């Protein structure tokens, strides 16, 4: 094998007995519960609040938390609780869609690079390097400068900016897998190339994806809220955590709760995703140290 000169990026592992523990560790219960609530809010917000997030009530603008409005009201008198709940749909679905885009294209490019002849692999790897030289936010802003603001464009912007992360990891995985015993075995069986790739390579390179995607989803949600804070995301009056924070910045002195609750929502979502992701990572590394 003279074609392969890269050192394997993940050390080959001696098989260790899997450490299987069933049940959810207690430390993970609060983040999982929070993520379930957030998922319910994103898919069926009406289950959690009956209030219209767009219904303005100027007479009760900037009112503090009360029995009628648990999280208070914003500068137009809209219920902050309803807006936080309905905002989950925007924030989470943009994050999820961006990650889906990034993992999909990243996996494809990573496998192609990992299985290609040297020159093509080299070309694709340099492409990932170049994409990675642009800070994610600036890359996303450039996409938006071309496409304009809005939900779909933010997904595109954040997804594109994250592609290199996934492509690089999948490429490294592909190198390990293609030199593994079972792939060489399958080659000696004379399996066709598509069958080889789909049946034997693809399932085995996907291992690190759940971990990366969980943590990446947190990053994507932070990026989404940042872009909509700058006014590039879903346009008003639709509730989105980042744009709610952007509006709240002007009323910090009189109505800090308008910033507190959407801020808590973003933070708790990302912390929960990070905790779950780290746990998954430890399990994954436990099996492949």
């Amino acid at each position, binding site marked *: 094998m003279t074609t392969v000169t890269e050192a394997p990026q993940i050390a080959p592992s001696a098989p260790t007995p899997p450490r299987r523990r069933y049940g959810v560790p207690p430390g993970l219960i609060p983040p999982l519960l929070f993520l379930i609530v957030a998922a319910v809010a994103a898919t069926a917000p009406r289950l959690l609040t009956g209030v219209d997030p767009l219904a303005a009530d100027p007479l009760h603008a900037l009112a503090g938390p009360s029995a009628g409005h648990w999280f208070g009201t914003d500068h137009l008198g809209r219920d902050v609780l309803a807006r936080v709940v309905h905002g989950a749909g925007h924030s989470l679905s943009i994050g999820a869609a961006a990650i889906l885009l990034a993992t999909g294209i990243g996996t494809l490019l990573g496998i192609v690079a990992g299985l290609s002849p040297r020159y093509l692999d080299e070309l694709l790897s340099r*492409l990932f*390097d170049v994409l990675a030289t642009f800070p994610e936010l600036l890359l996303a802003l450039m996409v938006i400068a071309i496409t304009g603001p809005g939900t779909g464009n933010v997904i595109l912007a954040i997804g594109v900016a994250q592609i290199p992360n996934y492509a690089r990891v999948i490429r490294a995985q592909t190198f390990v897998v293609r030199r593994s015993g079972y792939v060489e075995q399958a080659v000696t069986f004379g399996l066709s190339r598509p069958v080889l790739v789909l049946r034997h390579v693809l399932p085995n390179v996907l291992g690190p994806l759940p971990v990366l995607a969980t943590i990446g989803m947190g990053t994507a949600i932070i990026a989404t809220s*940042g872009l909509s804070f700058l006014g590039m995301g879903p346009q008003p009056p639709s509730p989105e955590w980042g744009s709610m924070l952007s509006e709240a910045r002007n009323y910090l002195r009189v109505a800090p709760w308008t910033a507190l609750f959407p801020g808590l929502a973003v933070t708790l979502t990302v912390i929960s995703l990070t905790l779950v992701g780290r746990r998954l990572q430890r399990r994954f590394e436990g099996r492949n140290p």
Partner: protein
Amino acid sequence: MSTLQLTRRRGLAAAGWLGPVVRRLGSGLAVLWAAATAAYVALLFAPGDTVDVLIGDGLDTPERRAQIIAEWGLDRSALEQYGDYLARLLRGDLGHSYILQRGVGDVLSSQIWPTVSLALTAAVFGVVLALVLALATAGRRSRFGDLVGLSELVVVSVPPFLIGILLLAVFSFTLGWFPVSGDRGFVSLVLPAVALGLQISGVLGQVLREGLERALEEPFAVTARSRGITEWRLVIRHALRHALLPAVTLLGWFTGVLLGGAIIIEAVFGRPGLGQVTVSAVTGKDMPVVMAVVLLSALAYVTVSTIVDLAYLAIDPRLRRSR
């Protein structure tokens, strides 16, 4: 291994320093060239007529269209246009903003210093905080250590602009210690730099502590302890060097975080700077300015990464022989 590779290796080894240095500088230049090309390709493939894309939301007159076609050479062949574009970049000419009616280089140079001073102050604050906390908590399980670990998790999970908003709410609106917005000397730099620096210290602190703890379990740590040196001296003299190596690789990434973060933080604190220029350029579809900012950030990233690579060569002689 082919003979060609063998001779190449021997050649580099004989040259010692020169080969790897030239190789790293060359790859830095190649990445910059590719980044400039990528920005250009993005401009060409943007939906709609290139002239429309370049005008953005600016005034659309026949004279201006003629000016753009002449400046970007849009009436000539694609190859000539591209060569012209690269030649202009090499001369340091970043083009012309058709919305601001000024040269892009002029616009950026008038706004770059507030951003650079913000980024540098934030970097110093973040690195010092991470170092202090990592040294204070590494290797010892304590309440304080758990608390620091938890706050690092929170800090990296909170969007940086939210930290900014919280700082504003507490220190400007409630306590009144710092101005609410604008750029009024060092006082107005404190809160934005803290908001931006915390981001860095969260990640750097985790990496440093992990590195310190790993180094303290190495055989050399046992040897040093057996010589009877104090734990503090062991950490400072021996473990810290090992822990710094993985942290140094993050420097290129920090440049990106600082630049991207500065854009948002400037919006939170109403500070002038590249961030405000970028945001208004993106909203106004002022492509020449957006492209220049993107290229500038790529330049900063490549410069820092190349310096880091060269520093590695100086620190770790093994790298001079490899590849």
